Each structure stands twice: as C-alpha cells, then as structure tokens.
C-alpha cells in the first residue's frame, strides 16, 4: 500500500476491528438466528408469470394442512394497508407510480411478485402449504425490452395508461443552443451506446424479518436484515397506519446490503401486519431463489452518450440520453437512481456549460430495480470513462494523455462545475500519476506494442478509469431540489458515563463497514481516551431514535462527522465544569490527552474522568448548568463529499477462447483523511471486485417471456476467489475542506471505478482487431463473438 500525508494517532491507525470476535466465533446474531418461542413462519406464494391477471386464489386446501394458521390472498389483505408500498423519490411532478401492494390483488407483474401468503407453525409447513394454494392466472404478454416498453405497444399497468414513469431533463447551457453548437463545431466527436445490464446484489445474508408484538399496549418490535432501520420505521408506520411511536425497529447483525437492504419490502410489512392481527410473533427468511427474484435488482439502463471535443481533445459538449429500467414497480428510491448519476457524466473533467441530459424511465415486467452499490454513479462513470477511451482512439492519443488534458486542474479547487455543484477538493493528476507509477504504465504500453502484433492470440489491454464520486449523501436542501422525500442529516449523541466510559449513539446502521471500530476511534481521538472505553450503540430505534441510516457512502462523511462535532460539545461543557472546579477561566484551559490543564500552570489540571463524575453527582456545577456530560448533534452536511481516484486494470485476452485474465489491478483512491486504513482498503478491495464482477461475470438474464434464468447462485455468477485477482491499493490524501475530519467516504468508490477500468482494458486489448466495444458481462463467449464479428466472421 502506498500512501502520502496520512495523519497519525488513533485516527489513521490500522486498528483491528472490535466487531470481529463475535463474527468469527459464530456468536453474532443475524435476524434468522434470533430465537423467539411461538413465532409463526411466513411463506410467500409468488407469481410464476411475468404478467398475468389473477383470476382467483383458492386457499381452501392449504388452510387445512397441518400446522397452517392462516392463508391470505392479496384481496384478503387489501384493507390492511393504509397506503401502498412506499416510493420516497417522486422525481417529477407527473411521475407515474402504479399501485404497489405487498400482495398483488388483480395482476402480477413480474416473476416472483407475491400474490398470497401462508403463516404456519414451522417453515416447512408454511412452504408445503404454499404449494397447495391454487392460483388461477390468465397469462398476459410481458414487456422485457426497454425500447419495446417505451413504445407502449403493450401497456403493463392499465391504471397509468403508459409504461413511461417519467422523463427528467438536465440541460445546462451557457447560452441557448450551446450544446448543439459545441457538436457542430467539434474537431472530434464520439457517439456511443452502452448497456448497463441488470445485476442481482446478492448480499450473502438473505433478507430476514421477525415481528414481535410486545406484551400489553400494542407495541411492536420489528427485527429486519436492513440497512435502514430508521427509514423502515417511518415507512412501516405510514404503510400500515400504525402509530410510529409504538414501533421499534432493530437491525441485528446484518450480512451485507449493497443497497439491496435499503428498502421497504412486502415481507417486512406482512410480518408486522400479521403479527398484529394474530397477536404472535411472525418471521420470514428469504431463500436465495426468492432473493434473486424478489429483492431489488441493480443497474438496468441503456445509455447513449456523445462527446464533443476541440482539436486538442478538450471536451466542449456532452449529451446523454438514458432509458432507465424501473422494473415492474417503483420501490423506495427506484426513480432517483439515474438522477444520482446525472451530475457525474462529465466525471473529473472540465466541461463548459454545454450539457444536455435526459432520462426516460420505463416499467417492464421484471423485478423492480433500485439502488445497488454506487446507484447511478457507476453507470455515469462507466459511460464517460468508456467514451473517453473512444475519444482517445478517435484522436489517436493515449487515453491517459487525453484524461490529463481534461482533468480539472488541482489549483482550481474548490471548483464550481457546469452543474453548479462545487467540488470541494481534488488532485486528479496526482492520483493518476501515482496509479501509473504503481502499475508501470509506460513499460506496459511497451510490452503491449511488442506483444499485440498482427496474428497474436494473447493480447494485452490496459484500462484506465479516473473517477469522481459524489457521496456523503447529502445536504438536505439539495435533496429537496431533487424532490427526494427526506433529508440527508445524521444524528449523534455522546455520553460520558460517571466512570469515564463513553457511550456513542449513532444513526448510522452498519452491515459490515466496521462503524463500531471507526466511531470509537473518532471519539478516542477527540476525548483523549482509549477506544476500548467507548461503546457504540446503533441500529435500534429505541436506543438510537434519530438517524437516516447507511447507504451512499454517507456514514463517515455525515455520521462520523456528527460524532466528532458532538465530542467538541462534550469537551466544551466539560471545560466549563473543569474551569469552575479549578477556579480558572475556561479560555485558559487546554485539553489534551483526556485532561484539562490551566495554561502556564500544568500542576492545576483535571482529567475528563473527574469532570464526568462531577457532572454526574452535580454537587458543584456552575450556576444554571444541567447535570451529566452528554451532548447531541444533528448534522446536515454543507456539501456532498468528493472522493476520487484512478484505477488501472491490465488484462490479457485470449482471442482463441475469448477468455480474459486480469494480470494486474491497481486502485489509487483518495477519500481524504482515513480514519482506519485497514477498513478503507477492505472497502476498496470489495468494491473493486463487485465492479469487476459486473464487467466480466454477472447479469440477471431474462428470457423473452420474462422468466429469470439466473435465479440461483448456481446460475448467477457471483465470482469466487479463484475468479478474481488481488487488488493493489494506493492512496493520495486530499482532505475534504468541508468537515473537521477531512473525510469523504469510500464505500462505493471501488464499484464505481472498476467496471469501466476492466472493460476499457478488454477493448484496448482488442483494438488492433477492429473491436470498439464489448458488452457486459465480457464472458469468453461474448468476447469471442465480438472478435469474430469484428474480423468479418473470418476467425
């Protein structure tokens, strides 16, 4: 690992994770591990058709089976819902949002759409009864192709009369017509179409839910394998019409999410509704096949991108047309995903105000899509990074050189982009230079020249990706301007207990990111105590009532900063108490190493521990001061944070088999100051492999009737260790100037950067054969056929 300028101390150390012992010994409890006596098991009856009218649901045979407590059709429960399944992001005033209920009543709209459910004493009994529910369907023609959907040849949802959900435009021009003029005057222009295939998030822990009615008074506790206990609480209360203050949501250990657990799902609502109705706990654990069909999918876009450039290759105009695949319904933030990418289509490059973006999103008869690691930003980055390679080819210069000509110069930060967004900091040339050095860029180009000679069957390719990530979601006012239905703040409480142990309460909700370790490090640094003396409380709305949870690389840049700010408030209060007891002026007190001392007279000092005890006894506090040492912050960030970096992938493609071998992968990421570089590298490793998996392996495949052909892990190719390379990480450190920790976020960086780096490498390897593009996933078959086609079918 290479790194420059990282601060030292507790912050910045490679501290081992406190989460690990419980996870390593099997003591951690995921939702499905929780033992609750008397819980009934929910099982879902799912549509085998992509689109079908529900003629009738006969539950008579199922309900008499042993152990079965009840069977419900969609019609049986239609009155249970106070509102439809929530979509929190109505991106335009006229966005179409078809009614989506936890159980479909009249029409099923994708394979896996739930139409009925069973509760029974055991999971086996429930599953057996599912088989006995007789649903009569009238199959209807399904719409799978995005452009076919757009044509409205077949309209999926009668109630909205079109397959078009919305069109959202973002045209930014210095003067009207500036974009068209840029293309008219361009020395070079490229026009490309890229397909973002659908992906299945496939967190290793399947979703699981357990709703437990509390004795007396109607309170309900909902355990769920979710990233968003706070959002889930609000949405469950609204959808079921139950009082929010009587609902407690707990996310126990959660086994990964990647956006797929950033949602509100039918099974969560059903467990609560049925637990309430029957007065007993109700639980559900997803099977993997259900997960593939009925947990959200990611990506799913057709991207048309055009770049205009001047004679030096500097970008002068950018045009983007997207078709977004919403799937059958809008889930929590489905329609907003393409918007998150809209602001990143110019990547790390200077672009004049000549930008023309439009996205039309359509319904199809497939699983709903929603946020998947990166959410809109990987798609945008893929398009611009692939198009930059095309432009470099067009001009006949090295892709790294083209990027360098277009980078926003380091001295221009903070930089107001064409969109009006202000990029707080950046050093793109620095990151690119380090990555090029680490990978041995010039030698590799040499090797490529000597190896990729005519007739060579093993061809080297080098792929670059220089990316910007817009994360730290998000300034609430910006979200308002995008019509998002919530804010972007995060809450923190820091409580120094009488014995000088510290409780931190955070609204973030980790599911693998190591927040307990990282947050304890922040507090330790700020309060001058040992991280071991800090307990981090989270993911339970009764303990941490305020929060907006974990997604969008927001936890550190918003939640972690909120904690640091709260520590400052604690120190401020402690300073008043210490000054009072030391009979000194608060301004004369220095705080270091967990101790207050009077400037100039170091013998007059008082440790935080003593202050905490005084605050607790409250025997001798300054007049009017409240007892106890505790503070709270709700932090609304002033800006997004802007991590960036350069990834370089080196591949060797065998033109006879179409196989791609990744020879080397270098990732240089700049996420500002690092709280824990061990965790940062882990995030990069995982993100890179997930992005590489989109490039080379993964695709949710549907046939023309709308059957999902990849509904198990035997068919959906999540790569194994033997399929992927090691990831060589490096870092530059450009602290964010907008928060006191100088941090930015790193959860999605790898996924955003990796996909175009890998495909750029594959295309680069084949450029001598006339190949200009390779669709994803670049499987051996696909690559072989592309080569074959480019060679005029002669190979």
């Amino acid at each position, binding site marked *: 690992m290479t790194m420059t300028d990282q601060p030292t101390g507790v912050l910045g150390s490679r501290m*081992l994770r406190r989460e690990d*012992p419980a996870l390593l010994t099997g003591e951690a409890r995921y939702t499905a591990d929780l033992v609750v006596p008397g819980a009934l098991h929910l099982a879902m009856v799912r549509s085998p058709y992509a689109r079908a009218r529900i003629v009738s649901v006969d539950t008579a045979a199922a309900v008499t089976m042993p152990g079965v407590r009840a069977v419900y059709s969609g019609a049986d429960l239609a009155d249970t819902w106070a509102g439809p399944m929530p979509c929190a992001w109505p991106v335009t005033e006229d966005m179409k949002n078809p009614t989506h209920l936890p159980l479909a009543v009249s029409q099923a709209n994708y394979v896996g759409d739930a139409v009925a459910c069973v509760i029974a004493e055991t999971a086996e009994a429930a599953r057996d009864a599912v088989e006995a529910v007789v649903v009569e369907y009238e199959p209807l023609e399904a719409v799978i192709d995005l452009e076919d959907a757009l044509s409205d040849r077949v309209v999926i949802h009668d109630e909205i009369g079109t397959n078009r959900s919305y069109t959202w435009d973002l045209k930014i021009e210095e003067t009207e017509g500036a974009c068209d003029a840029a293309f008219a005057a361009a020395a070079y222009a490229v026009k490309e179409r890229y397909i973002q295939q659908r992906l299945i998030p496939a*967190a290793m*822990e399947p979703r699981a839910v357990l709703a437990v009615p509390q004795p007396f008074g109607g309170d309900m506790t909902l355990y769920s394998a979710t990233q968003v206990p706070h959002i889930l609480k609000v949405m469950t209360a609204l959808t079921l019409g139950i009082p929010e203050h009587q609902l407690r949501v707990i996310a126990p250990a959660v086994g990964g999410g990647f956006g797929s657990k950033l949602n509100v799902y039918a099974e969560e609502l059903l467990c609560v509704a049925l637990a309430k109705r029957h007065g007993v706990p109700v639980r559900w654990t997803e099977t993997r096949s259900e997960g593939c069909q009925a947990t959200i999918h990611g990506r799913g876009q057709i991207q048309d991108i055009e770049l205009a450039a001047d004679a030096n290759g500097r970008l002068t105009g950018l045009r983007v047309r997207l078709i977004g695949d919403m799937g059958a319904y809008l889930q929590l933030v489905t329609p907003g995903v393409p918007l998150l990418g809209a602001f990143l289509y110019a990547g790390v490059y200077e672009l004049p105000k000549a930008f023309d973006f439009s996205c039309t999103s359509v319904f199809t008869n497939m699983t709903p899509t929603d946020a998947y690691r990166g959410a809109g930003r990987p798609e945008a980055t893929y398009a611009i990074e692939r198009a930059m390679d095309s432009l470099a080819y067009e001009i006949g210069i090295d892709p790294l050189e083209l990027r360098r000509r277009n980078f926003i110069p380091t001295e221009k930060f903070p930089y107001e982009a064409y969109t009006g967004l202000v990029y707080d900091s950046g050093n793109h040339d620095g990151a690119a230079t380090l990555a090029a050095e680490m990978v041995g860029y010039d030698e590799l180009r040499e090797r490529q020249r000597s190896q990729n000679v005519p007739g060579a069957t093993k061809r080297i390719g080098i792929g670059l990706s220089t990316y910007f990530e817009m994360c730290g979601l998000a300034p609430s006012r910006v979200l308002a301007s995008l019509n998002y239905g919530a804010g972007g703040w995060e809450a923190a409480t820091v409580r120094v207990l009488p014995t000088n142990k510290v409780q931190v309460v955070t609204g973030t909700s980790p599911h693998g990111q*190591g927040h307990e370790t990282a947050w304890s490090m922040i507090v330790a640094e700020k309060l001058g105590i040992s991280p071991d003396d800090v307990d981090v409380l989270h993911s339970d709305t009764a303990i941490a009532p305020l929060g907006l949870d974990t997604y969008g690389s927001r936890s550190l840049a918003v939640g972690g900063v909120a904690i640091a700010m709260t520590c400052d408030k604690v120190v401020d209060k402690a300073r008043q108490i210490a000054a009072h007891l030391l009979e000194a002026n608060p301004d004369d007190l220095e705080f270091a190493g967990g101790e207050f001392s009077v400037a100039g007279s170091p013998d007059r000092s008082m440790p935080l521990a003593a202050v905490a005890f005084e605050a607790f006894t409250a025997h001798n506090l300054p007049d009017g001061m409240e007892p106890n040492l505790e503070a709270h912050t709700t932090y609304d960030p002033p800006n997004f944070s802007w991590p960036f970096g350069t990834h370089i992938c080196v591949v060797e493609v065998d033109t006879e088999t179409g196989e791609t071998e990744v020879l080397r992968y270098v990732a240089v990421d700049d996420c500002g100051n690092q709280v824990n570089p061990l965790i940062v590298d882990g995030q990069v490793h995982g993100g890179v492999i997930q992005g590489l998996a989109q490039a080379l392996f993964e695709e949710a495949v549907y046939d023309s009737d709308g059957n999902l052909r990849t509904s198990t892990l*035997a068919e959906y190719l999540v790569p194994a260790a033997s399929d992927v390379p090691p990831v060589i990480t490096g870092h530059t450190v450009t602290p964010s100037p907008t928060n006191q920790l100088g941090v930015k976020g790193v959860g999605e960086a790898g996924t955003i950067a990796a996909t175009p780096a890998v495909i750029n490498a594959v295309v680069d390897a084949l450029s001598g054969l006339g190949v200009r593009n390779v669709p994803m996933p670049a499987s051996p078959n696909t690559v072989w056929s592309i080569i074959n086609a480019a060679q005029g079918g002669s190979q």
Partner: protein
Amino acid sequence: MEITVTINGKAHTADVEPRTLLVQFIRESVGLTGTNIGCDTSSCGACSIHLDGEAVKSCTVLAVQADGHDVTTIEGMAAADGTLHPMQQAFMENHGLQCGYCTPGMVMAATSLLNENPNPTEEEVRIGLEGNLCRCTGYHNIVQSVLACAKG
C-alpha cells in the same frame, strides 16, 4: 428417526425427519447458529463445517447421514478460554471479514485447506476456497489471512 451426532465434542441426540438437513439440525435442534445459510443450491459455502475433520457444506448432508459422526462448527474452533483459533486470529489481523456472514464457512474451509496443504501458494488458496462465496471482501484479505495463518 433418532440420531446422535457429536458436535464440538458434545453428543447431541434428537429425533429428526428424514428430510432434515445437517445444517438445520445444527442450527435448529442444537441451537448453534454460527453456521449460516446463504443459498439453496450448495453454491455459497456459508454452511461449511467439519465432518470427521473435513470441510463439507452442511446443506448437502442429511442429518441422518451424520448419525454417529463427529462435527465441528465455528463455535468449536476457539479454545475453551476464548482464545481464537489461529485461523480466526489471522482473519481478524488481516481484516479477512466485513459483514461476517461468509466468515464461519470461510474459516472452516480454510482450516481444512491448510490441513491438506499446510503451505499453499496464493493460487492454491484461491482455488481451495472456490466453493465459498464472499460478497464483501473481494477475497483479497481472506487470501492474505489464510497465507498468514499458514506462515504461523
């Protein structure tokens, strides 16, 4: 039918249905929930345990087939005083886990791998673990953990 399986050194006797999987027996009858379930096609390895000392996916074995046999689960790896098994320790030191869901299975598969091949190359580790999927780590640090454990 009644079966007796020795799990982590302790004999467990229970009445099971013929269709009960070993993983269900371990999780539900014995109550050891460290062994996870990640799929229904024996693809993910989250359920890996040791059966008579060798790593197997416990979702591919019927409980009745384990009658009279010896099973070690993740709960049986650390010493009685809580000291982590060297493989667990190596995973901790090398950040070989994030969400931890694949981890019990990975640790069981990795210890079994080193039993068979105490000094594997990186390539051999990657191939040896190909039956175990992880969505979080990108495998990089898992491989490092296993190599570090082999080095001792």
